């Protein structure tokens, strides 16, 4: 389980070292802090996406959710002058609501996650553009939410708050996923929904909750991105971001078939993606190759992981065979013994 994360970490370290050796600017304090900020921004919703992917589903609507919640958030603060704690709460509730609706459609009405969230992607984006008449929303010169802005885009001892938030969130979700009953259920449902249901797990609720968590985290990310860019252009804000999240989760060991992945893996996956983006800039690779580099690394990463897993499974199967092989001899003995025992009344001793 931890091997995958260790491998990813080593890959991250090697790439960073090489890039740093070629251009020391990569390892400069400013650049590292900048990357940490981006990792924080992109990691939060990647974690939500990861939970959804572990259920065997997918959430394609995140980027559009950012746009819709973003324009609403700015409007609440500027046009309606809503105090920031309420605006924040409303945006989180909005994310929760959208996630809840998607979860409901997927679990109760048995629609495919890909379709539900693809329609979400289209609808939220359209709604955001219609709501703003396609015009960019931003903060005026007033300080509508300076406190929140300071929290979202500030830093503690130089470390960006977004990054700190990601670490705290990862710890909480790590406990949820790897230590709690819910986490166990999530893996079980992702691997074999039927067996989970036969074990009395409310599989619908478990799956829907993953979409709700993803929605809430999308709300949090919205606020962080709004204060990162200070304005929201409804047609481009958050475009493709769901794909970054899916890429990070897959790179971090999540399988789109469900039931696999870890919080640490997703965080490392996010970090690796941001390092790759940064590396393209720092090494002077044409910016247009950005996506191509990312795609290539994910492709190679997943391929390597699959090969390693196949090898591990072969080994495990061989070990299992070795265990059962000598059993063949002992079954006969056992069989004779238990048949002898089955005839007289030997019932109490098993109790």
């Amino acid at each position, binding site marked *: 389980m931890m091997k995958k994360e260790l491998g990813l970490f080593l890959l991250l370290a090697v790439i960073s070292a090489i890039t740093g050796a070629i251009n020391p600017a990569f390892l400069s304090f400013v650049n590292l802090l900048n990357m940490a900020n981006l990792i924080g921004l992109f990691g939060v919703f990647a974690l939500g996406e990861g939970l959804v992917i572990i259920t065997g589903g997918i959430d394609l609507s995140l980027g559009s959710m950012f746009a819709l919640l973003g324009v609403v958030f700015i409007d609440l603060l500027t046009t309606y002058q809503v105090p920031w704690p309420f605006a924040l709460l409303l945006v989180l509730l909005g994310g929760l609501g959208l996630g809840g609706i998607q979860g409901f459609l997927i679990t109760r009405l048995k629609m495919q996650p890909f379709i539900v969230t693809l329609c979400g992607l289209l609808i939220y984006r359209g709604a955001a553009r219609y709501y703003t008449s396609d015009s960019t929303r931003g903060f005026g010169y007033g300080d509508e939410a300076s406190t929140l802005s300071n929290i979202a885009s500030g830093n503690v001892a130089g470390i960006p708050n977004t990054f700190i938030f990601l670490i705290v969130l990862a710890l909480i979700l790590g406990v949820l996923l790897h230590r709690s009953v819910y986490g166990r259920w999530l893996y079980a449902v992702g691997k074999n929904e039927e067996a989970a249901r036969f074990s009395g797990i409310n599989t619908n609720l478990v799956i829907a909750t993953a979409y709700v968590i993803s929605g809430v985290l999308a709300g949090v990310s919205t606020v962080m991105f709004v204060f990162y860019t200070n304005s929201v252009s409804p047609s481009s804000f958050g475009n493709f971001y769901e794909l970054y999240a899916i890429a990070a989760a897959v790179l971090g060991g999540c399988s789109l078939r469900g039931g696999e992945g870890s919080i640490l893996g997703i965080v490392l996956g996010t970090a690796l993606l941001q390092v790759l983006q940064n590396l393209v800039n720092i090494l002077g690779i044409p910016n247009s190759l950005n996506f191509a580099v990312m795609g290539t690394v994910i492709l190679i990463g997943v391929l390597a992981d699959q090969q390693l897993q196949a090898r591990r499974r072969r080994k495990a199967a061989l070990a299992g065979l070795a265990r059962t092989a000598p059993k063949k001899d002992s079954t006969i003995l056992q069989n004779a013994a238990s048949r002898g025992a089955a005839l007289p009344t030997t019932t*109490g001793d098993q109790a």
Partner: protein
Amino acid sequence: MAETLLELSGISKTYPGVRALDDVNLNVCRGEVLGLIGENGAGKSTLMRVLAGVIEPSAGVIRIGGNEHTRMTVTEATQCGIAFVHQELNLFENLDVAANVFIGREKLAGGPLKLVDNAVMRARVMPLLQRLGADFTPNTLVDNLSIAERQMVEIAKALSIDARVIIMDEPTSSLTISETERLLEVIADLKAHGISVIYISHRLGEIMSCADRVVVLRDGRTVGELARDELSHAAMIRLMIGRDLKALYTPPACAPQPGGCDIAGVVTSAFPDRQVNLSVRRGEILGLAGLVGAGRTSLARAVFGVDALLAGEIRIDNAPVGIGSPRDAIRQGIYLVPEDRKKSGLVLELPIRENVTLASLLDHARMWLVNGTAERKIAKDQARRLSIKAPSVDIEAVTLSGGNQQKVVLGKWLSMQPRVMFFDEPTRGIDVGAKSEIYALMRSLADQGVAIVMISSDMEEVIGVSDRVAVMHEGSVSGVLERDQFSEYNVLRLAVGQALEIQEAAAS
């Protein structure tokens, strides 16, 4: 009367540890309807799969049309004019009738693109459908057809390859009475055209009405043959039974206690027009016998809350319990050891430990956080109690043998407090040693006051392990046998829907 069209001689098929077919001889004449009967697992389906080229026999010769084959391939079987109308229909629901009939040998139009020529295929299929008296057209989507109509498509497919022998495996298991009659008419028509039919069915009445000759299989051997004028229910059943059963029975430590589980007027979606009434006392093992598809698994699924209960009531210790999901059932202490343990019983990729505690995890948690120590202890206890053979409880269930996997499923339930347990084919695909361990375990559970229902198609198991046997036929309970009435003959009579021995005494 007529020339022999097809002859199987000395066909054997052995799997490691199992002899599925043992020196089977069978011949089919031209234009004959041959009834093939036998209990569950007697080897009928295996034999037919040999004939259709799906399974390679270990020994024996297939003679057809003057040629000898030691084995067939699917293509050869088709070329020899053997067609199969499957029990589970093998049709592509998303394609139309004509496309299904010509699947794999599509008629192509000329021209460089070699496109599929739908018009030609439809024109070819039309007369076949007319001949079968079907009232749908070749361009109907199979998805829109009823089961009976789909069967007609299968038969049309057989006719389209100029089949000389059509094998029908339980063709009427999901047909209504009028549809069955229609099928029997079609069979008579096929016969009149010189086409032979091998008709496999558990429904002896249908066999009586359509077969010219009946061959009976038992334990993979041909045990008898009845000519048309020798056919009677009693004669057929007498040939189907007659295995010597090993004594497996362990009597209960004390008499069954009052209370237990009552299933009253339960209707499942598999048989919406049948009611099931069944009682199982605490301390008792109730065997639930019946032919495959008699509604036993549907009953267990409905009681366990997996499928909806259309009507009826379930009472535990005389108190009605509402069950809408497996969660409700588990809360009431009703557990199911499912038929397909890999699909429904286990999460194969999770370790033994997590599988054992999957259903009871909240009990081993504080504030929703899993108590790892408690969990490991429970799993280890179960592994020891059930003697699960594994180096540790942390290895994945997928690496275990069938018997040990089943024990993990049992461990999941035994770590909780069972009141009523359903075992659905608990020893299928499990070696003999593990089997007797599971029987001993069921008995010890019963002695602790658990009411046990054991669904089994293995006659030896049903008669050898149960305290009472309830037999299901076509969705309802056709009779309950006490131990002194136990016999393969009685179980089988009830399973095919016949009444018990009063008539039998008169007949013999």
